[in-house]
């Protein structure tokens, strides 16, 4: 029983009318989620700027408030005060709606992220497919922004976004199927409860595929071709300013938070952990995943378009299929008590597969066919 259900029961025993019993907990839950997302996004922006400064041996923003924590708020106020410019050749309506279509699905993802035991808005029995389905709506928002701006750079970015999202969705879904096979359910709560051993140990290959795939889904470096500053200026949000740009900016960090939460739930055993309260464990793990993402951004150069596509289709996809078959066979053959055997087997297999496949698959040196 989730916290929201308990809230509903309390209201019902207090004698509230039926529609209020139904609506009040939902609205309170949504408000809590929105406040949580906005707060964490501010922390994320500060953390990314400070951490990436450490990687680049400089200080980063450190003047506004203690250690510069108020800098994101100053940035937000600055962005909101800017003039809202709509290009003359833009499709005004689509240009206006696009930021909303990008941002709303990202908020919707948080409905199924379990922050603690029972601390989830709805425990859908199709939880993880819901995440995949909802996040695919954002692509349309990005393409609306790209098309509505009437700018050729944003148009290129829109085409890249479609190619990228469609390709990387497949390995991501296949690696999720591996988890569903072990868990026997798509429900996020059941996935967390099934992880007496975190799935990152049980399926290291699945974790790598999901992590890289979701990096591409959230347009993070090294897969940030949509907004490659040196090639197409800022990509799909080139013609946006003021409040609308803030929506895209918020969405970018919101999706990073959402996917960090989902990686935590799927592979790092969610809220579970000794001593500390569940919500604290969840936030620690989310911060760890996000730091890893920033580390990738600081270390790896951006991929070329053809490299991006061949990485998805020639590396991630075969790996995901092999991972799926291996996990299926292990679930069938191995008895349930022998999960440690599975850990050792899968780690060996992942190492061998990645080494062998990267021999077959050379990038950069020779010509890469797509």
């Amino acid at each position, binding site marked *: 029983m989730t916290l929201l259900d308990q809230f509903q029961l309390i209201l019902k025993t207090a004698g509230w009318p039926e529609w209020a019993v139904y609506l009040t907990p939902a609205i309170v839950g949504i408000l809590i989620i929105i406040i949580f997302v906005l707060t964490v996004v501010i922390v994320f922006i500060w953390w990314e700027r400070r951490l990436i400064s450490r990687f680049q041996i400089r200080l980063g923003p450190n003047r506004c408030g203690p250690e510069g924590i108020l800098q994101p708020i100053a940035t937000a106020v600055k962005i909101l005060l800017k003039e809202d410019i709509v290009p003359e050749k833009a499709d005004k*309506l*689509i240009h206006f709606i696009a930021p909303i279509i990008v941002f709303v699905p990202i908020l919707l993802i948080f409905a199924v992220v379990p922050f603690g035991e029972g601390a989830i808005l709805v425990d859908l029995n199709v939880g993880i*497919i819901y995440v995949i*389905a909802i996040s695919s709506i954002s692509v*349309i928002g990005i393409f609306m922004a790209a098309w509505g701006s009437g700018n050729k750079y944003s148009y290129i970015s829109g*085409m890249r976004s479609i190619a990228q999202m469609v390709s990387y*969705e497949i390995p991501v879904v296949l690696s999720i199927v591996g988890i569903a096979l072990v868990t026997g359910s798509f429900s996020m709560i059941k996935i967390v409860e099934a992880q007496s051993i975190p799935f990152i140990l049980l399926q290291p290959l699945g974790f790598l595929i999901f992590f890289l795939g979701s990096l591409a889904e959230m347009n993070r470096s090294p897969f940030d071709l949509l907004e490659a500053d040196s090639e197409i200026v800022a990509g799909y949000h080139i013609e946006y300013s003021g409040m609308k740009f803030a929506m895209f900016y918020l969405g970018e960090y919101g999706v990073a938070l959402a996917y960090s939460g989902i990686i935590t739930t799927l592979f790092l055993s969610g809220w579970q952990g000794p001593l500390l309260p569940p919500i604290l464990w969840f936030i620690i793990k989310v911060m760890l995943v996000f730091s890893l993402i920033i580390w990738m951004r600081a270390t790896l150069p951006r991929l070329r378009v053809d490299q991006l596509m061949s990485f998805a289709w020639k590396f991630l996809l075969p790996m995901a299929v092999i991972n799926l078959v291996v996990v299926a066979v292990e679930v069938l053959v191995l008895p349930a008590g022998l999960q440690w055997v599975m850990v050792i087997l899968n780690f060996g297999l992942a190492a061998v597969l990645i080494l062998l496949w990267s021999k077959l698959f050379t990038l950069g040196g020779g010509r890469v066919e797509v």
Partner: protein
Amino acid sequence: MLEIAFALLAITAVASAVAVIVVRDIFRAALCLILLFMTVAGVYLLLHADFLAIVQILVYVGAISILIIVAIMLTRDARQGPPLGNLKYPAAVVGILLLGVVVFGIINTAFVIPDNAPLQETVKPLGKALFGDSGYLLTMEIAVVMLLSAILGAIAVIREK
């Protein structure tokens, strides 16, 4: 409450379906079509078919609409829409005939509503029904092989040059 939700969804669905035809800008028409897909998913949700609703969004909004958008990217003058051809009247006749057939079908069907409560967990029963002992494993496999051959065919067409 469910009635209000259904009314909202139904009105949006019909309005966006009409807009798909009426709007001249092809891209906006495609967006209206996506809205229509989503309202249909909402109707599925009202019928307690959550898996079906999610798959509707995943397949239609996530994939089919992308296909349509890619097709639009390859057209010229998307803003004005295509010029009206001289097939206006035959198209109207065929359209009205089709509408008549659909309306006739809906009116003359006795829809049976089962008495038992809708399932709480839909994925497992669905999987059992598809792949279980008395399931549709062979049909599924045939569909899968058909899709695979379609993909291979597409690759073969591209490889030709």
